Every structure is written in structure tokens, then in C-alpha cells.
């Protein structure tokens, strides 16, 4: 049997050839607050998210009628409960994203922060989140244990695979929890707008090249972007870059846009399809 990493044809929803997950991480003022900074002046980029960036993305997604997934830090939800509630009520999945967008592993404090954010989002949206994305990328086995305890079925944080796969932690592969990898080096706005300061048209071209290669191969495309200014994609030109990617993907046959929870549930309904070869790991 071909290993998952070598397999080139996958059973995606609706018999699609390629799935595209559009994931927006709120990243409001939680980052600055988490660092003990006042989000004023040059540190005010997070305020742009709720005021301008998120409404602009919501409009754009609605124009294209595509599903998307929204990862929200607990603090940002507390600051903008009406906005988060309205988006949840429109049918968009809300996943959790740390409390104060913790920039480093919070260690022993993490379980309480995960639970606090979980309860906050549940209370605000009326729906318990079942997906998580790590703020800043840190994740440990302790994170997984707590997420499972809270009823999560997936997270989208790992960088070690091109496809969804069943999670393994504490020495055991799980058939009730799936990892939906993302890649914050190439399929994310941050590296281009904060590290290399690349013009948006070139960023779009880069993401199109990523699409070409993924479409030709496994067919799992997970794009991560943010509604703030600065490192994010909130400005008109940058929302247009994400929009350009959507339009480009649409031109290809068999492309299916998915919500991340929808995809996770799809995978968990057929766990045998999403087992990795763990030898050598």
C-alpha cells in the first residue's frame, strides 16, 4: 500500500481534486496586550483588524461565496464580542487561537488559558469551538491532551506534513483527532509582509505557484492570513491578493473550498485514509 506521503490521489469531499482552506487569524490587540504593550501609535495595528480588516475580508468572502475559518484569541473575542458572534451566526466556523495570542509556550499556565478561551468563545458564539490554531506556532503534547479533553477534534498548527493526518501523542496514534497542517513560511502573509516586505502582486504570484504545485500533487492547500495592517493582509491591496488567489483557484477543475472543521470531520469519518507512516519519527 502506498504511504500517505507518497499517495497522489485522495478522497476529498465531493470527489474534489484539491481542497482549499482559507484561514483568517483575528490577531487583534491581543498580541500587544500579551506583551504588556499599549496598542496605541505604531503599536495600534491590531486595532485595524476589527475596524477595517475583518469587515473587508467578510465582504470579499461573501462576494465570492466561499467558506472560510476564523481563529480567534480569547482576549480579542472579549474586545469584539458582537463582531465574533455575527460571524459565527453567519455560519463561519470559529476556532480558538490562544487567550492573549501567547507568543511563547505558556507552560503550566496553558491548560487554564485554553479552557478560558474555550469557555469565552462558547459563551459568545453559542457554539463550542472544535478546532484550534496555535498562536505563534507553539504546540506540545500537553496542548493536545487539553484540547482533546475540551472536545477538540483538530488543530491547524503543524508544519511537518503536506496533508491532513491522524495525530499521534503520548506514543499513540489517535483516530479521533486530526492535524490539518499549515505552513507559516510560504503559505502565510506574515513572512512576505513582515520579513521580506514583498509587494502584494508578488505575494499573490507566490501563492499561485504554491497552488500549482499542490494542485498537481496532493491537493491540500491551507492559506493563513491576518486582517491587521503591518504583517497582515487587512489593507485593500492585500485583501485583493487573497481574492486573486481565490479567483485563480476557481479557474481550476475540481477545486473545493472547505471549512477546516468540515475537512477534519471528513477525515475522521475515514481515519484509515489519513494514517501517516511514523517509522523513523
Amino acid at each position: 500500500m502506498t504511504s500517505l506521503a507518497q499517495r497522489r490521489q485522495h478522497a476529498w469531499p465531493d470527489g474534489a481534486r484539491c481542497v482549499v482552506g482559507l484561514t483568517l487569524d483575528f490577531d487583534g490587540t491581543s498580541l500587544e496586550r500579551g506583551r504588556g504593550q499599549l496598542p496605541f501609535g505604531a503599536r495600534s495595528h491590531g486595532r485595524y483588524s476589527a475596524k477595517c480588516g475583518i469587515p473587508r475580508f467578510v465582504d470579499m468572502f461573501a462576494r465570492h461565496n466561499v467558506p472560510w475559518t476564523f481563529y480567534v484569541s480569547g482576549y480579542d473575542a472579549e474586545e469584539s464580542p458582537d463582531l465574533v458572534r455575527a460571524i459565527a451566526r453567519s455560519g463561519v466556523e470559529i476556532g480558538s487561537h490562544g487567550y492573549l495570542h501567547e507568543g511563547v509556550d505558556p507552560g503550566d499556565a496553558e491548560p487554564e488559558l485554553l479552557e478560558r478561551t474555550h469557555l469565552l468563545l462558547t459563551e459568545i458564539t453559542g457554539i463550542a469551538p472544535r478546532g484550534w490554531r496555535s498562536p505563534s506556532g507553539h504546540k506540545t503534547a500537553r496542548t493536545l491532551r487539553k484540547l482533546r479533553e475540551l472536545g477538540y477534534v483538530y488543530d491547524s498548527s503543524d508544519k511537518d506534513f503536506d496533508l491532513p493526518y491522524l495525530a499521534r501523542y503520548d506514543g499513540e496514534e489517535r483516530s479521533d483527532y486530526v492535524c490539518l497542517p499549515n505552513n507559516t513560511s510560504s503559505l502565510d502573509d506574515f513572512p512576505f509582509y513582515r520579513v521580506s516586505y514583498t509587494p502584494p502582486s508578488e505575494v499573490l504570484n507566490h501563492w499561485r505557484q504554491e497552488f500549482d504545485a499542490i494542485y498537481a500533487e496532493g491537493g491540500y492547500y491551507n492559506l493563513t492570513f491576518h486582517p491587521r495592517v503591518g504583517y497582515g493582509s487587512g489593507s485593500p491591496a492585500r485583501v485583493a491578493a487573497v481574492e486573486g488567489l481565490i479567483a485563480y483557484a476557481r479557474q481550476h477543475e475540481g477545486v473545493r473550498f472547505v471549512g477546516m472543521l468540515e475537512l477534519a470531520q471528513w477525515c475522521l469519518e475515514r481515519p484509515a485514509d489519513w494514517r501517516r507512516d511514523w517509522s523513523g519519527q
Partner: protein
Amino acid sequence: MTKVPVPVAVTVNLQGKTVELAHLGEDALFGRASYGKYAYAVGCERLFGLLDRHGIKATVFVPGAEAEANPDYIAALVQRGHEIAAHGWAMEELDAPQIDERALLERTHATLTRIVGHPPRGFRAPHGKLTRHTLGHLADLGYRYDASFQDDDHPYRLDADGGRGMIEVPHAEILIDATLYAQRQTHDRAMKTWREEIEAMHREQCMIALTLHPRSDYGSARASRIAALDGLLSWVRGLDGVSFLTCGEIADQF
């Protein structure tokens, strides 16, 4: 004045050698610590000469100490139609410990008032750093607007943030020359980024704020960058519905 569809503010942070003097003594301002001295030697006149040729009235944020050292030049900028606004005293970080923020803002205010002939109406925090008290102090001193935030497509009221009766005239990090030039982007790439961002902002009728520095390191004042900026400004002037306004005019329109 009727509200213009797309206001464009050209703002200049007049950062000369106060940038270096925040860390070094006067005797050390040679070699790589001499970029700031370029401003009054060469850069300011290149930059304001270009803006004058385009008929653009800029909003110039001036540290009090720079105004005190160059009072005639600052007064002349007012005569040329530019708006002079406050930019701290000498590139302090307002949130640093042991700063008497109130005294610093008052001293800057008094110095600019004396040199310009009327009180400044606007403020931009050096390094973009404010404390939770800054806007309240500015409101007490009668400021009409702040221009330090980078968080909106349009001006907005600052009452909820402590600036009673004040307006925020925000700018955009990506339209600050230093954002790209400090990263050693080429002129072509910087202008490409600006055109793409501005074109999309214009399409959505956002306020457009350019932020320039008269310096030869992270600023726009070298001849080659002036040429790049010249081309950009000509293009912006040709966009439909665009009006170049000072930040004071934008705040008054709100």
C-alpha cells in the same frame, strides 16, 4: 469645504540629528552617525523643493529641539504653506521610564508656538510610542488631532482613547518610507509596493497618508529617491477624486 472623495496627506517627520543625539553626544556625530545631519544640510530642501514643485502642502512633524536649532527654516516652511505640527522634543520614547511627558509636550508646544507664530494643532509621537496619558495631555494643550496611529482607513474620534474632542488622522506603516528603505528595499520595489497599496486604497476611497523623512538612510531625500517619489506623486495627482490636504485640514473636515 466640501468633503473630498480621497484625501491624500503628505506628512514629513523632520528627523535630523536628534535621532542620533538621543544616544550619542555631538562629538560622535560623524561617519555612520552623521545621517541625521544630512537633513538640514541637503535633505529638507530637496524634499520640500519637490513638494513645492508639485504644489503639495505637507504636514511637517518637527521635534521641538530641531525647531529650536533651525527656527528660520521652520518659520520659512510655514510661509511656503506647510503645516508645522509637534513631534516630541528630541526623539524621546514617551513610554520610557523617567520621562516627564507633560513637561516635554509643553516645552515642545511653547517652542513651536514661538517659532511658528501660532500653536501647533497636531502631534505625532516620536517612534510612534504613546502612553495612556499622551492624548489627555494633548487635549489639555488644545491639540485638534493626533497622527500617530496606524489602525484605520479613515480619520476617527479619539474621545474613547483619552483624546477629548480630538481627531485621529491615521497613517499607514506600509506608506512610511522608513518601513521599506530601512529594510534596504530598492527604489523600484518600494514604489511598486506603494503604487499597489495606494491604487487599492484609492479604489476603496480610503484616506491616503504618505510619511517621508528628509534623511539619506531610512528617508526619501537622496536624489535618486526624490526622483522615484517625483514619479509617484505625479501618478497620485492623476488619480480621480484625489485632493492633497494637510492633516489639519483633514481633521477640520471630519
